[in-house]
C-alpha cells in the first residue's frame, strides 16, 4: 500500500505538471519561459515538501496519515480545476511580463498540492524502514517506484489522456484516484492497526 501511494503520488505530480502547461498557455503563451517557470515552481514545491514530509515523519508515523496526505493533495488540486481561469485572468492584468506571470500563477495554483505530494516520499520511507542497515535499500526502492510512477504519469497524460479528455476531466480524474487510493490506505489501517 505504501508503495502504491508513493507510485501514484509520482504519477499525480507529473500529470498535474503537464496539465499546468496547458492551463497557463492561453494566458502566458507557450514560450520556453513558461515551462521554465512551471518546472521551477514544481521543483521548489517538491523540495519544500520533502523537508516537511521528513519533519512530519518524526511524530508517530502511520499509514493513515500517509493516505491522508494523498487525499489532501487531491483536495488542494480542486481549486486549480475550479478557479484557474479567474486567477489567470486577474494575474494577466497585474503582471505584464509573462515570465513573472508564469512564476506567480504556477506558485499560486500548483505550489500547495505539489508540496503535499513531495511530503509523501520521505514519509513513506519512514514507514517502510524497520532496520537501520536497510534504510538505503528501502529509500532506493521507494524512489524507484515513485519515479516510475512519474514516468508513467508523464507518458500517459501527454500521449493519451489529453487526446481523450479535457484538462478539467483529467484533473478531476487524477484527484479522484488519489481520494480512492487514500481511502484504501485509511481502510487498511483499520484492518491491520498501526503500521511501522
Amino acid at each position: 500500500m505504501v508503495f502504491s501511494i508513493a507510485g501514484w503520488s509520482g504519477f499525480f505530480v507529473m500529470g498535474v505538471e503537464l496539465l499546468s502547461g496547458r492551463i497557463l498557455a492561453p494566458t502566458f503563451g507557450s514560450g520556453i519561459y513558461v515551462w521554465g517557470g512551471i518546472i521551477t515552481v514544481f521543483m521548489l514545491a517538491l523540495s519544500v515538501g520533502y523537508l516537511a514530509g521528513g519533519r512530519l515523519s518524526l511524530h508517530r508515523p502511520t499509514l493513515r496519515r500517509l493516505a491522508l496526505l494523498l487525499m489532501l493533495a487531491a483536495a488542494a488540486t480542486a481549486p486549480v480545476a475550479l478557479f484557474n481561469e479567474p486567477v489567470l485572468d486577474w494575474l494577466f492584468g497585474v503582471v505584464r511580463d509573462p515570465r513573472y506571470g508564469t512564476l506567480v500563477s504556477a506558485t499560486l495554483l500548483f505550489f500547495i498540492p505539489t508540496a503535499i505530494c513531495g511530503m509523501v516520499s520521505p514519509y513513506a520511507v519512514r514507514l517502510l524502514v524497520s532496520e537501520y542497515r536497510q534504510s538505503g535499500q528501502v529509500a532506493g526502492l521507494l524512489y524507484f517506484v515513485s519515479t516510475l510512477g512519474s514516468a508513467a504519469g508523464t507518458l500517459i497524460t501527454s500521449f493519451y489522456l489529453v487526446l481523450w479528455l479535457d484538462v478539467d476531466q483529467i484533473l478531476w480524474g487524477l484527484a479522484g484516484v488519489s481520494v480512492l487510493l487514500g481511502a484504501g490506505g485509511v481502510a487498511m489501517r483499520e484492518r491491520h492497526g498501526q503500521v511501522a
Partner: protein
Amino acid sequence: MARWHSAAALALVLLAAPAARADTVVHTERSLYRQILVYDDDELRCMRFTKQTGGRQSCIDRAHPRRVVFDYVKMMLSALAVNPAPRSILIVGLGGGTLVDVLERALPDADIDVAEIDPAVVRVATQYFGLRTSPRVHVHEEDGRVYVKHALREGKRYDLVMLDAFDHEYIPEHLLTQEFLREVKGLLAPGGLVAANTFSSSRLYDHESATYASVFGAFYNVKASNRVIIARPDGLPDAAALKGGAARVQPLLAPFDVDPARFVEHFDTKPDWRTDARVLTDKYSPSNLLNAPGRP
C-alpha cells in the same frame, strides 16, 4: 563487407548529389525554439526549421526578391479582395517576413503589427530576407496569444488579422482553440477579416474546421498544397463583389506576382469536413496528436 557498405553509401551520396549540391547553407542557428536553417538553391533563398527537406518555412526569389514564391502566401494576400484597403493589420508569426513586406509596400496607409515569439526569427528575417524597418511596421517579440490578449485589453482593433504561426511540423496548440479565435474575433474592427494559414491534415482538418465554424460561422476555405481560411464575422461578399474586390487590388499586388483573381475563384464556403467533429478548446487541444501522420 564493411567496404561493400561504404561503396554502396558512396554510390547513394553520388546519386543524391545533384540535389544536394544545389543547396548551400547560408546560415544556421539554434534558437530558443528550434533550429533555423537558411539556404540557397539555384533560384531561391529559404528558411527552414527542420533538418528534413521539404519543410520550407519561407522563401524568396533571389533574382526577383519581390516575387511571392508560395501559393499559400498568395492565397492569404487574396483576402484583400474581401477588404481591399485595411488600415490596421496584425500578423501572427513572422517567418521570412514575406507577408509583412508585401503588405507594407502594397498598402502605404496601413499600420502593421507583427507578433513573433522567436527573436532569432526576427534577426534572421532582417539579415537574410531583407525585412526592412519601417515606421509603419512594429514587430513584437512575444507569443501570439499573449499579444492578442494584451491588444484586446488595450482596445486595439484591426481590419485584417493574419495567422501564420503554424508549420507542418508543429502547431502551437493554444493558437488553435475556440477561445483564441474568439479573442481574435474580438480584435476585429467592423468589417474586419481573418486569414489563417493552416497545415492541418488527417483528423485535425475536421476539428480545425469545426472550431473555426463555431466562432465565425461560414468561412472561405481555400485549398492548394496548404489550406487558408478566410473569415469575416460581418458576412462574406457574394461572388460578384469578390471579383470586383480582386480587380481593385490586382494592380496593388501585381508587382509581387500575385493575381487574386486566380484565387478568389476557389473561395469556397461549402463544408467538406465532418461537422460533428469535436471543437478544439483551451481545455481540449491535442492538435499535434490529431495532426500526426498515419492517424486515420
